[in-house]
């Protein structure tokens, strides 16, 4: 019987939850306007065909090597497919415009903030951001002290995580300003959609995402050291054991630049060279996907073999550009995040276009008291981790876990912030176990680029899906899935 079902029949069985904001359906369960066409198209597909398409998309991903590693897995090193859901997430153009303006505004302000922090420190002297917060940040990097990167740009690539709350507004969950990953999934999801649902896709007026690698390449070229007209750019990866290695090789290939590891590079006379069979070749711009700590054993971790000895001196001399600059992590510290609205006002004199989620800093006495009293209703996060590691969610933890975690917070107050448990919007998602479409929480990671005279936000993004029912953590490293994200052209 199941075999003859169409998706239309399945959509009728959708367990709509009026408590949650559903991206596809309005409060009265009617399909939202911008979803009409897609909904109707999918309704006509039989479940069998749909399953075939899923299998086709999965095997295509596998053949392309679109995999990642989960560090917490028992089977360390086993590659996994990033589960991809065929029902795309749709964003109307008007909504997107606000997001885009908001992200560009945020990026501008954070860049000015980093320039200021490592040089004049006006924002600290004016007491807008407390100096203690900056100087105690694990990612504040003294090696950038009194230094402007080429073209004054610190953050070339950023990945801003957004959620839509039950009030219908987008909120910024966090800024990722170090080596944000995921954009390769945006591009490969789009390829998969075009392959599996070509008729639907080409009928819909969707903004392209395919220009991302090209713009990234332009950004890298635009920040080349002074006097270099035809810069050599490379992508520096920690190597094949890194969870995002697929992305590194994918982007290098798309941009037509060399994918290199630390051992392929060396420094002489404060210039960086790549070893090639024709002899050393000077490198001008490095899109590095290696964290600060591992970049140069002469100044950072001495035991690291991933970096290039002497790189930071060459960098400070201005002979090589790094994207992103070193020391950017101080601005995506989750405690600094709480000040981003003030930072926007301070440097741009504007109100923030995108909201922050209200955040309690456990370092502050009154905030700590609130957090300890209301922990059941809060998400507590370490300020310096990423990938969803170390997150504590109050309403799903036992009494025991709560009292133990309270002690952890009290012992390391600077390390923790807390936010109300935001009700992330849900999106209809096909669930294999039940053979049904069910609501699942989603967020959106956007990707933006900043170069000399270039401001770009990839029109789309990675919609991450928490595949387990009721789960709020969507990170790929926590076993989430993803959706293609369509931004409509008006």
């Amino acid at each position, binding site marked *: 019987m199941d075999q003859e079902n169409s998706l239309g029949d399945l959509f009728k069985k959708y367990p709509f939850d009026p408590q949650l904001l559903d991206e596809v359906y309005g409060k009265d369960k009617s399909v939202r306007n911008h979803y009409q066409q897609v909904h109707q198209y999918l309704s006509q597909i039989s479940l069998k065909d749909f399953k075939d398409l899923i299998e086709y998309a999965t095997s295509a991903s596998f053949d392309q090597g679109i995999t990642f590693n989960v560090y917490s897995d028992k089977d360390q090193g086993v590659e996994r497919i990033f589960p991809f859901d065929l029902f795309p997430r749709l964003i109307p153009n008007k909504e997107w415009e606000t997001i885009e303006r908001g992200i560009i505004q945020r990026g501008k302000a954070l860049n000015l903030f980093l320039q200021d922090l490592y040089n004049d420190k006006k924002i600290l002297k004016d007491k807008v951001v407390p*100096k203690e917060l900056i100087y105690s940040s694990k990612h504040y990097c003294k090696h950038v002290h*009194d230094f402007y990167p080429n073209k004054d740009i610190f953050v070339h690539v950023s990945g801003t995580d957004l959620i839509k709350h039950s009030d219908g507004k987008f909120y910024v969950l966090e800024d990722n300003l170090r080596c944000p990953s995921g954009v390769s999934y945006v591009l490969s999801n789009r390829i998969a959609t075009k392959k599996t649902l070509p008729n639907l896709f080409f009928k819909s007026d969707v903004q392209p995402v395919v220009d991302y690698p090209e713009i990234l390449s332009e950004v890298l070229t635009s920040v080349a050291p002074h006097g270099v007209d035809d810069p050599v750019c490379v992508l520096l990866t920690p190597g094949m054991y890194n969870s995002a290695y697929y992305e590194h090789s994918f982007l290098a290939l798309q941009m037509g630049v060399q994918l290199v590891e630390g051992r392929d590079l060396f420094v*002489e006379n*404060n210039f960086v060279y790549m070893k090639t069979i024709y002899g050393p070749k000077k490198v001008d711009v490095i899109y590095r996907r290696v964290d600060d700590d591992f970049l140069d054993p*002469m100044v950072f971790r001495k035991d690291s073999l991933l970096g290039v000895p*002497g790189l930071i*001196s060459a960098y*400070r001399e201005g002979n090589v550009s790094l994207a992103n600059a070193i020391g950017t992590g101080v601005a995506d510290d989750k405690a600094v995040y709480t000040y981003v609205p003030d930072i926007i006002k301070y440097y741009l004199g504007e109100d923030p276009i995108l909201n922050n989620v209200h955040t309690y800093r456990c370092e502050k006495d009154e905030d700590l008291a609130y957090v300890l009293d209301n922990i059941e209703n809060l998400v507590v996060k370490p300020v310096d981790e990423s990938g969803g590691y170390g997150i504590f969610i109050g309403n799903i933890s036992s009494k025991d876990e709560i009292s133990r975690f309270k002690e952890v917070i009290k012992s390391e107050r600077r390390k923790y912030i807390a936010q109300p448990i935001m009700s992330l919007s849900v999106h209809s998602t096909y669930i294999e176990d039940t053979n049904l479409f069910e609501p699942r929480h989603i967020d959106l990671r956007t990707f933006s680029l900043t170069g000399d005279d270039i401001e770009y936000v990839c029109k789309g993004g990675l919609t991450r899906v928490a595949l387990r029912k009721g789960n709020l953590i969507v990170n790929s490293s926590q076993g989430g899935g993803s959706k293609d994200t369509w931004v409509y052209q008006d």
Partner: protein
Amino acid sequence: MIEYLITYESNNRYEEQVQEAFFEFLVAPHENDTQRIVNEKNTHSVEGTSFYTKNIFSYKRYCLRLATPFNTLDFRYECVMLKKQDTYFPSMYDMLPPEDEIQMLDSETFQIENYPFLNQTYLTDISKSEVPENMLKTSAMPLLEYIHQLNQRIHSYLNYRSNVTTPFTSARETLIRQLGVCQDYAHFMIGILRSQLIPCRYVSGYLHQGQNTIGAGQMHAWVEVLFPKYGWLGFDPTNNLLADHHYLKISDGQDYQDCRAINGFIKPGTVNYTEYAVSVVDQ
């Protein structure tokens, strides 16, 4: 002007053959109003490419990249330098009055501008509550007087002992064990000063031999303190002396890590033995 002849020599042996290496030597004296290099020479036993860089505090480093395999590396730096002989050391009258001094030390802007020298590192970290009472500044005491006193108290509190500490020995361990070498004296003094938000920095350099001081014949370390409105002045708690013309500064930084004479990276990583010798003579 006094003319000094300085020689720094290091000898590194590696258990396994090194295929590729990168070294930075922070051994050349810094040039400023009081000291000037007339002549200098670097030599090394393994052929490689050499060049200069500046570290984050703008001190000149000599870099060496080696791409031919080797088991031993001898490095030698030699220079002739001129040092001004100051007979006058600033007194209380050159400083701000104590209340103005305190006001400036407490000011947010002053603290922000001097953050690298106020922020404890893991080598210097001590909190005010751990510091022996008689080593803390009282509010009425002028800073200069306090530093003189602290220099002397640390000198008598610690016992000079070689080979019992390492470059990673922290000020807190020194506080407890009361033993160490010049580097430990310096970290200890820095820890005490920074715990009270008095800006100070670690200095590495050479000490003129034949003065009956401890630490001559090797790289020496002492401390510079920032006096509001006046500037930096050097103190040597190891010898309970002021850093006068017998002290030839190479560099300064937050702690020893910023001032290491040799900093190297070798592939493959292997056990190494380093011996070094320093000689400073006036001519």
